[in-house]
């Protein structure tokens, strides 16, 4: 749990640097990318427990990134962290499958709490999925 892998997506390098440092000191493995395209690429290449995603970015924005990520059918949970929060965007993001929603600037403890929640959920979903698969395999082999 402490070693949860986090993908940080934000167009502002200063922000990703600072946040990476903070999260790393709290034991997370953090990868930071500066855009939606890079995020999708990173998701395709490695396994991440939680993606912390900004909404307003040049090129592929947060919502589009979230949609693309969902298409990859990964277990990675997404946490939206944005400076431009509205009830509508929050609702839309949740509908698209985001785990939760936070507005900048936020408290690190609150963020960590949400990351943990997301990570737990991801683990639970993954375990559930594995169990389902095992069940299927077992049933298929005729045990």
């Amino acid at each position: 749990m402490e070693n949860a892998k986090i993908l940080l997506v934000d167009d502002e390098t200063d922000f990703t640097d600072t946040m990476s440092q903070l999260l790393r000191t709290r034991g997370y493995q953090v990868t930071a990318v500066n855009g939606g395209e890079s995020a999708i690429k990173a998701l395709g290449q490695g396994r991440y427990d939680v993606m912390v995603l900004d909404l307003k970015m040049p090129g592929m924005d947060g919502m589009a990134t979230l949609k693309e990520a969902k298409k990859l059918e990964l277990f990675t949970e997404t946490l939206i962290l944005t400076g431009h929060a509205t009830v509508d965007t929050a609702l839309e993001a949740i509908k698209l499958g985001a785990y939760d929603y936070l507005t900048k600037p936020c408290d690190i403890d609150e963020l960590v709490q949400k990351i943990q929640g997301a990570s737990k959920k991801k683990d639970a979903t993954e375990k559930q999925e594995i169990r389902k698969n095992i069940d299927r395999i077992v049933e298929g082999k005729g045990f």
Partner: protein
Amino acid sequence: MATAKNGARAPEISEREAYYRRQFRRFVFFTTLSSIVPLLIVGWIFNYYYKDFATARVKTSFVTQLEQHAKLVDLFLQEQVSKLELAVRSHTKDFLADRENLSSIFKTINAKKGAFNDLGLIDGKGCHLAYIGPYELMDKDYSNSFWFKEIMTGPSRQVYVSDMFLGFREVPHFIIAVLGTDGSERWILRATIETEVFRRIVEDVRVGSTGEVFLLNTKGVYQSNTSQGGKMLEMSVFPVRPFTETVKVEVGRFGITGSEKRPPMQIASYVWLNNPRWMLAMRQDYSEALYDVNHVTYVMSAILLVSALVIFVVTVFVTKYMIHAMHKRDREVDQANECVIQASKLASVGELSSGVAHEINNPLAIINFENQILADMEKTSEMDSDFREQLLKSLTRSSNMVKRCKRLTHSLLKFSRQTESVIDDVDINSLIEDVIPLIEREAASSGIRLIVEPESDLPTILADSSQLQQVFLNLITNAIDAHDGTGYGSVRIITKTNMNDKGVDILISDTGSGILPERIDKIFDPFFTTKPVGKGTGLGLSICYGIVTKLGGQLQVQSEVGEGSVFTVFLPFEPPAGLKEVVE
């Protein structure tokens, strides 16, 4: 007491007033002109034709009257002539020369009317053969008399009727002479007509007070007296008109006997008698003859004048009313314009705030996290105790400033998002009940009593409940803050139905410090605040104002320094149509 009603006053009031006065004069002038002129034209046309018609009638009546009178005079003369002719034709000279016989005939012909004054039989030399009458005329010689010559030597005439003349008696009279013949002998039966009898017949017509009837001979000498001063045998000022057997009418200034003044306009009719050749004339002052016509004209002029006056007065009143309505409407337009200006001010600030807030949030997040890094490091690093103390103090202050900025940016974002409304049935009383717990603690800690006085059967309205929650939260918080930490006071929230404007009124009154009159017009402007730096963003009231006006309501304030303020929120039963459609 200072009041603010949706912003500034309408500019250029004196210019407006001058414009209204100009419009007033213009309306009155043109309306009066366009209604009175046609009225006068119609009146004039009517009068013109009526006068024409009435004048024609007066003329006709002059003709008819004179025609009848001429017949009467003519008949009288013919009757007298016929009597004498009958005497001449039915008797011989010798018979008539007998005074007894002549007297008997005189009595017979004079029996009815007494029209004859005397009767004489005159021989061919002009001497009386017999005479019956009151005068001593037996020895008079008529051989040189104009009438004797006329009948004896003139063209063969059997009957001669003379003009008026004085004769031997020096009394105006006229005679009828009938020529009689016995073989070659010629004689004349002559009779004098009783002037008084004849005058009565001629003058027995009343033609108003200025009218008269008279006879003129061919030379213009009066053959009768006139009621206006003309004397028999005097020369008449009335001109002799050409011979006519039918009655003619003329209008002109014919002159008055014995008057040197400018003669009045008169209407006159005349006709010539056959024997004698006298002109019977009748005349009257035109003004008297047309008295009825003139009377109608006067009455009509008076009616026109009164109508014109009434039109003018009504026009003035109607115009005054219209200008008043215009004034009122303009004031409403001004108010609406002020609302639009206020709204557009809010909209532009909204756009700006949205961008600014977002741009500031990112750096704020970085500062926040950097603080956190330092705070993390402080826990694990070795450092001087003074430095540690200063670091912690700085970090706390820095963190507080971030929180303050965050409050500001979030307010800005809320402000910029006022365009989105979700309209539903809202029970204002229960909405306020929901809001109260959020601020109860703050009020209690400030020593402020919250008093809610809801109207029990307040109708529900169509509005956005979450936006309204924000409005009331804001207004009540402001009301608590208005007490400046005095530690006592109250905030009263009253709801009531406003049937006049079809909506509900929510009054939030406080016992706080009040608002200075010079500030009251600015309190709905964005970023205007009287709170200490860092306590308020200056957006609260402008957000409230934006929400309330967008829902079709009004936010007003009345305040007295030292006494407190009353914020009145009016919300209509239904929001404006546009807003409703967007939401549905």
